[in-house]
């Protein structure tokens, strides 16, 4: 499964960032999007940012995926290792 979720980049240190996903802070790897800037919305798949979203698009998509039950409404966890608290449900390849 290739589900990617929108995240707003908060702070960047090298190729590692902290990002906001629906109010939760997650760790995001920027190796595949090295020119990303704080404040930008990015698509995150399996912990890596893959591309940018336009701001309006990111919020809409996050709401949509949550509504669809594809990601938990409280997506994200402080440890930054997964989406949501159910890590087994949240970890999906694509």
């Amino acid at each position, binding site marked *: *499964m*290739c*589900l*990617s979720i929108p995240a707003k980049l908060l702070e960047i240190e090298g190729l590692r960032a902290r990002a906001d996903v629906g109010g939760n802070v997650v760790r995001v*790897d920027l*190796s*595949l*999007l*090295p020119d990303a800037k704080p404040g930008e919305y990015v*698509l995150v*798949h*399996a*912990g*890596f940012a*893959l*591309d940018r*979203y*336009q701001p309006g*698009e990111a919020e809409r*998509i996050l709401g*949509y*995926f*949550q*509504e*669809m*039950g*594809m990601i938990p409404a409280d997506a994200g966890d402080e440890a930054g*290792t*997964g*989406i949501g608290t159910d*890590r*087994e*449900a*949240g*970890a*999906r*390849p*694509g």
Partner: protein
Amino acid sequence: MDGINGAGEIGDGRVPGHGPGTARSAALAGAAGRISGASVRERITRAADRLASRRVRLMEVCGTHTMAIFRHGIRGLLPDCVRLISGPGCPVCVTDDSYIDAAVSLGLDGKVTLATFGDMMRVPGSRGSLQDARSRGADVHVVYSCADALDMAAKAPSRQVVFLAVGFETTAPTIAATVIRARNDGIRNFSILAAHKLIPPAMAAVLDGGTALDGFIAPGHVSVVIGSDAYLPLAAKYRVPIVVTGFEADDILEGVAMLLEQIADGRAAVENQYVRVVRPGGNPAARRAMEEVFEPSDASWRGLGVIPDSGLRLRREFTDFDAGRRFGVAMAPAPPPKGCRCGDVLKGAIDPPECPMFGKSCDPARPKGPCMVSSEGSCAAHYRYGRVKPGSGS
């Protein structure tokens, strides 16, 4: 998501000529509140009218599309002449038994820690699943990212950590980036067991296998990486319309409209409905990482068999990170479970309910085949949502 608002929201704009159960489907669609594009449905109706009574078969090759199509009751919103088929769009579902068996054996040997995406845990191999292996003592960890597996290895240098690297082009660059980091950081106790699959060769294999198709709904997030241009050779070679499509109900309906319009026009082009996110060239950094670490190789797909150049193996410079070599893992072909027809489901040859095991000996609580294991598998989607509208649109 359970706040169903009723069919009334979209009732006036329904496409005529669909089967029973549409009110329920429409209610599901209304639940997400996203089907607003009456003009898109008009485009579908107009294109279908131009096709007269010709029947049209469109295949989606993305598990997220499969889920969204069922969830929104999209099949019930389409004219009778349009049939949507779920193809090999779930990386878990197409992973061969032999791979699961090899991972299980490696785990039960007790010499390594396995790290895997969660979806893989319950996939049954011929000697049980990874979950079974864990209950028998194998050290199996679920991680969200391959990078987490590398972190595990970095923190425990005396322990060999093997990441089970499955997934399509969306996932492969994340594994590639992690392998590059492992090399750069000199982490020697990390390796991957690679079984990545590539979508365009699978689309070609479906057509080569004789499945009659009139168009592809191409995946959104795979295309974020490879770009919409990646489908140009396919469209040209097979004269098949391809539309890269987003995930919301309106996106999918518009993708269908664009495909029907191409078919009615007699065109076979690559079009991008999801221009908001997908670019023609994809993500160059992701493609570079994938190309640096991996090279195409033949791969065995469940149900489709071996497809030339449809997988990825580590390049020679990175074979130090190949768990198969490091631990002498052998992958012996294993027959699918008796009676399981996941292979025919993945090819679009049958719908899940046509499998004799569907809903009887195989359901999401006790899955026998991989298409029922993954929440994005065709069988699981049919089981959860498809039965609200039996027999129609599918």
